[in-house]
C-alpha cells in the first residue's frame, strides 16, 4: 500500500503544481494585460436582439411577423459636427431639432453605442439619409426588426400585443436576456407564449479603449430566433366574421366541435396591436379611454345574458327528467301568471298550442317558463352547469366564468331562468362550447388554439367531458335546432343557406337598458357531420335572428366550401 500512497502523493503535488503554473501564467506572464482589462473596465456587451417567433394560422398564413424598420441613430464617438447632423436629420425626417437633441441626450450611453434619435423613418427617408451619410460622420441609419401584424387589428385580442417591460418585471426577465428596451408579450398569445416566441438574444463582447471605442471583438453569441407558433385559427374566416360585424360591437367564437380547436375568435371593436410597440402614446391613450372598450375581449371576458339560447339546455334537461316528451303540447296564450306576477311571451297574441319543436322554432317563452316550473331550480341548474355555464372552459388565456344563481329562487324567477332571463351570465366562448356539445352528440370540449410550437405538435389534449344526456334527448333538440333555421317561421331562418344545412338557436336577451337587447345565435353546420360550432353575439345589437343569424350563415357557407379549413 505504501507504494500507492507515494504515487498518490506524487499525483497530488503534480496537480497542485499545475494550478500554480497556471496561476503564474495568468498573474505573472499575462498579468499586465488582464490588469488593464479589469482596471479600465474595458469589456462591453453589445446586445443583438433575437427575431421574435412568427405566429401563423392553420394554413401557415402570417398573423404576427417581423418587419424591418429604419431607425436614425448617432454614434457619439464618431461625431464631428453635432449641430450639422441634427440639422440634416431634422430636415429629412421632419422632426424639430430640439426634440432630436433631447432624444439624443436621453439615449446616449457609451461612446460606441448608437443612440437612437428617430425610432422610425419611412424607407425613402432612410435611403436618402443613407446616401448622404458620408457627409455627416456619426450619423447612422440602422435597420431593426419590429413586430408586425399583417392583418392589422384582425384577431388582435387573441394575439395580444407587446410592450416594454415595466421596472417590476425586469428582474424576473433578466436571466432570459431581456433588457429594458426589449419588448415582452403583454396580453393574449404574445404573453402566454412569450418565452417560446422570444428566442435568445445574442451579443458581442468587445474590448474597448479608454475612450470606449471598440478595439476588437472578444466573443460573439449569435441570437437565436424565437419558435414559430402555428394556430388552429383560420385567418380568412376570422376576417370574414370581423367584416360581417362591421362597427356593431360583439363577439364570436367558431370551434371545431370534435377537437375543440378555435377556428375563429372575434371581438369587435378591436385595436391595432402595433400601437403599443412604439412610443406613440396618444393612440394607446385613445384606446384606453374609448368608452366602447376595444381592448376587452368580448369573446372570453365579456359576460352577457344568454336569453333564449339557454332554452336548448332547459329542453334537454326536461326531456332527461321526463317532465316533457317531444309530443307534450302546451298552450301559449301570450302570457303566464305565476303567483301575482304576469309574464308575457314575446308574442303578445300568443303562439297557441305548441310542442317542443314548435316552441324552439318560435322561441316561445310561455312554453319554456312552464317547463322550467316543472323542472325546478335544482335540475335546471345542474343541466346549466353540465354544459359549462359558470365554469371555466379551460381556455388557456384570460376568461370569465359567468354566473349562475346560487341562492334560492322564487317560482317566477326559476321560470325566467328557464328562458334565459334573470340571474345568469355567460361568455360567448361558453356559448360556443354549448353549441359544440349539441353538434358532437353530448361532448363538452375544451377550447384550444395552439397547434404547434416550432413545428412540433403539442401533445393534443383530448380533454372532453361527457354531458349525461341520452342520444334520444340530443337528437330531439338537434332536430329542433335544425327546424329553427329550416322552418320559414323559425326565428333563425336568416341563417338558412341553400349551400349547407345549418342548425341553431337564436337569443334576444333583454338588458338593463330599456329597448336594448343583445342578439345571440348559437349553432353548428353541416348538420350531419358538423365541422363548425359557433356562438355569435351582437352587443346591444337587437334581435338574434338578424345580424347574428346572418353572420352564422356566412360562417357556415365558408366552412362548407370544399377547400375551406
Amino acid at each position, binding site marked *: 500500500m*505504501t507504494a500507492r*500512497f507515494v504515487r*498518490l*502523493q506524487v499525483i497530488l503535488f503534480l*496537480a497542485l503544481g*499545475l*494550478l500554480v503554473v497556471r496561476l503564474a501564467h495568468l498573474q505573472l506572464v499575462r*498579468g499586465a494585460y488582464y490588469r488593464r482589462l479589469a482596471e479600465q473596465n474595458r469589456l462591453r456587451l453589445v446586445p443583438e436582439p433575437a427575431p421574435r417567433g412568427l405566429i401563423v394560422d392553420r394554413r401557415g398564413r402570417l398573423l404576427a411577423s417581423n418587419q424591418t424598420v429604419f431607425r436614425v441613430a448617432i454614434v457619439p464617438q464618431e461625431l464631428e459636427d453635432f449641430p450639422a447632423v441634427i440639422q440634416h436629420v431634422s430636415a429629412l425626417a421632419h422632426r424639430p431639432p430640439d426634440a432630436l437633441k433631447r432624444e439624443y441626450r436621453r439615449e446616449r450611453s457609451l461612446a460606441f453605442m448608437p443612440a437612437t434619435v428617430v425610432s422610425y423613418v419611412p424607407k425613402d427617408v432612410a435611403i436618402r439619409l443613407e446616401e448622404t451619410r458620408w457627409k455627416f460622420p456619426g450619423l447612422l441609419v440602422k435597420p431593426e426588426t419590429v413586430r408586425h401584424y399583417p392583418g392589422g387589428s384582425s384577431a388582435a385580442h387573441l394575439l395580444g400585443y407587446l410592450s416594454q417591460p415595466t421596472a417590476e418585471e425586469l428582474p424576473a426577465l433578466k436571466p432570459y436576456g431581456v433588457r429594458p428596451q426589449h419588448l415582452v408579450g403583454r396580453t393574449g398569445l404574445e404573453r402566454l407564449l412569450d418565452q417560446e416566441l422570444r428566442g435568445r438574444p445574442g451579443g458581442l463582447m468587445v474590448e474597448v479603449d479608454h475612450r470606449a471605442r471598440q478595439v476588437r471583438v472578444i466573443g460573439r453569441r449569435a441570437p437565436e430566433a424565437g419558435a414559430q407558433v402555428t394556430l388552429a385559427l383560420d385567418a380568412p374566416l376570422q376576417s370574414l366574421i370581423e367584416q360581417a360585424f362591421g362597427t356593431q360591437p360583439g363577439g364570436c367564437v367558431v370551434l371545431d366541435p370534435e377537437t375543440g380547436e378555435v377556428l375563429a375568435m372575434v371581438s369587435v371593436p378591436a385595436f391595432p396591436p402595433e400601437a403599443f410597440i412604439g412610443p406613440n402614446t396618444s393612440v394607446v391613450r385613445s384606446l384606453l379611454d374609448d368608452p366602447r372598450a376595444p381592448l376587452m375581449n368580448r369573446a372570453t371576458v365579456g359576460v352577457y345574458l344568454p336569453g333564449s339560447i339557454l332554452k336548448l339546455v332547459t329542453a334537454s334537461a326536461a326531456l332527461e327528467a321526463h317532465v316533457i316528451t317531444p309530443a307534450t303540447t302546451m298552450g301559449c296564450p301570450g302570457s303566464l301568471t305565476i303567483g301575482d306576477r304576469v309574464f308575457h311571451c314575446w308574442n303578445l297574441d300568443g303562439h297557441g298550442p305548441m310542442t317542443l319543436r314548435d316552441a324552439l322554432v318560435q322561441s316561445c317563452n310561455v312554453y319554456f317558463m312552464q317547463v322550467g316550473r316543472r323542472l325546478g331550480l335544482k335540475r335546471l341548474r345542474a343541466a346549466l352547469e353540465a354544459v359549462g355555464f359558470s365554469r371555466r372552459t379551460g381556455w388557456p388565456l384570460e376568461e370569465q366564468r359567468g354566473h349562475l344563481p346560487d341562492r334560492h329562487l322564487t317560482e317566477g324567477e326559476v321560470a325566467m331562468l328557464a328562458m334565459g332571463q334573470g340571474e345568469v351570465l355567460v361568455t360567448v366562448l361558453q356559448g360556443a362550447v354549448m353549441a359544440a356539445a349539441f353538434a358532437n352528440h353530448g361532448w363538452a370540449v375544451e377550447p384550444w388554439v395552439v397547434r404547434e410550437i416550432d413545428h412540433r405538435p403539442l401533445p393534443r389534449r383530448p380533454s372532453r367531458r361527457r354531458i349525461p344526456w341520452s342520444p334520444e334527448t340530443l337528437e330531439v333538440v338537434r332536430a329542433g335546432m335544425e327546424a329553427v333555421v329550416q322552418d320559414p317561421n323559425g326565428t333563425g331562418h336568416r341563417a338558412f343557406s341553400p349551400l349547407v344545412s345549418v342548425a341553431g338557436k337564436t337569443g334576444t336577451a333583454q338588458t338593463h337598458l330599456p329597448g336594448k337587447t343583445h342578439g345571440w345565435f348559437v349553432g353548428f353546420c353541416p348538420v350531419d357531420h358538423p365541422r363548425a360550432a359557433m356562438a355569435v353575439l351582437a352587443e346591444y345589437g337587437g334581435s338574434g335572428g338578424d345580424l347574428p343569424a346572418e353572420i352564422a350563415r356566412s360562417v357556415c357557407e365558408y366552412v362548407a366550401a370544399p377547400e375551406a379549413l
Partner: protein
Amino acid sequence: MRLSLRSSRAWDGTVLAAAASLAFLGGLAMCSATSAVNPQLGLRHATWIALGLALSFVVARLSPQRWMDAAGVAYGLTVSALALLLGAGAVRLGATRWLSVFGLSLQPSELMKLTTITLLARYLAGQPRPLPLRAVGVSLLMASVPALLIFLQPDLGSASIFGAIWVGMVWMAGGSPRLFTGIAASLLALLPIGWHLLHDYQRDRLLVFVNPHADPLGAGYTIIQSVIAIGSGQWLGRGWFAGTQNQLSFLPERHSDFIFSVIGEEWGFAGSAAVVALFGMLLGRTLHIARELSDPQGRLFLAGICAWLGYQVFVNIGMVMGLVPVVGVPLPLISYGGSSMITVWMALGLLQSLRRWEVHE
C-alpha cells in the same frame, strides 16, 4: 513513530494549522466578496467556521471504530435524505439541493460524501488483495447510488466527486491499473450517451470550456471575468477590498464557487499560491498520517478524504482559471456554505480521532 500520550490528545499541528489558516484566509476573502451584496453573509460564514471547528473537536474524541460501525446506518440515512430531497426538496436555483429542517437549509449531498467514504473504507478494508471483481462491483454500486441521486438534482459537479472518491479508494485498496484503464475506455465509449443525459446548461458549460468566447454573455462570461480577475492580481494583488472585478460585481457566484478568483484578484500570486500551498500541506500531511496508520480501514478512509478534497480543490481552482469545465464544486474550507464547511471539519476531526486511537492501541 511513537507519540507521547499527552501530545496524542492534541491535534496534529500541521493539519490544524493548514486547515485553520485556510478557513481564516477564506473568511477574509468572504468579507470582501460579500460586502457589496450582503455583509451578513460574512458573519454567517464565520459562524459556520466556528461551528465546524467545534464539531471537529467533538468528533475527534469519538472512537473511530464507533464511527466505522455506524457507517451502514449513516450511509442509509443520507441516501434516504437525498431521495426525500428529490421527491420534495425546495427548488432553488433550478436545482433541488437543500433540505429544510427546522428552517435550516441542509445540503445532504455534502454529508453523503463523508458517509460514502466511511462505508467504502469499511467494505474495502475487509476485501482480499488483489481486489476481486465482485468487490469492485459492490463498491462501485455504493458510490454510484448517491452519485446518481445527486446527478438527478441536478448537480453534475457533486456527482462527479463520488467518481473521484471511488477511484482513489479502490486504487488504494489494490485495484489493478488494468481495471482503471478499462473503466476509462468504457467511459469514453459511453460519452455520446452521457451527452444526451446532460441538461442544456451543463452542455453549454462543457462547450464553453472548450471555447469560452463562444458565449460571452452566458456561461463564458463567468470564465472570462474570472480569468481577468485572477490575472489582474499580478504579483501582490490589488489589495483586500480593492479588487474591481469583485467589488463591482463583475464576478458572479463570487462568494461560493468563484471565491478563489476574489483571492487571486485581491491577493495576487503571493496570496493564491499560498492558498494552493496550504492545501498541499493539508492533503500531503493527511496522506502522510494515513501511511503511518496500521489499521487498513483508517488508511482507506484517509485516502478517500484526500481523493475527495484533492479533487474539489483541483476542479474548483482549475475551473475559475479556465483549466477545467465549470462544474459547481465548492472550494473546501473557503467557499460559502454551511453543509460543506461542517462536513470538511468533521472529516478532519475523524482524521484526528484515527490518529489518536492508533497511538493508544
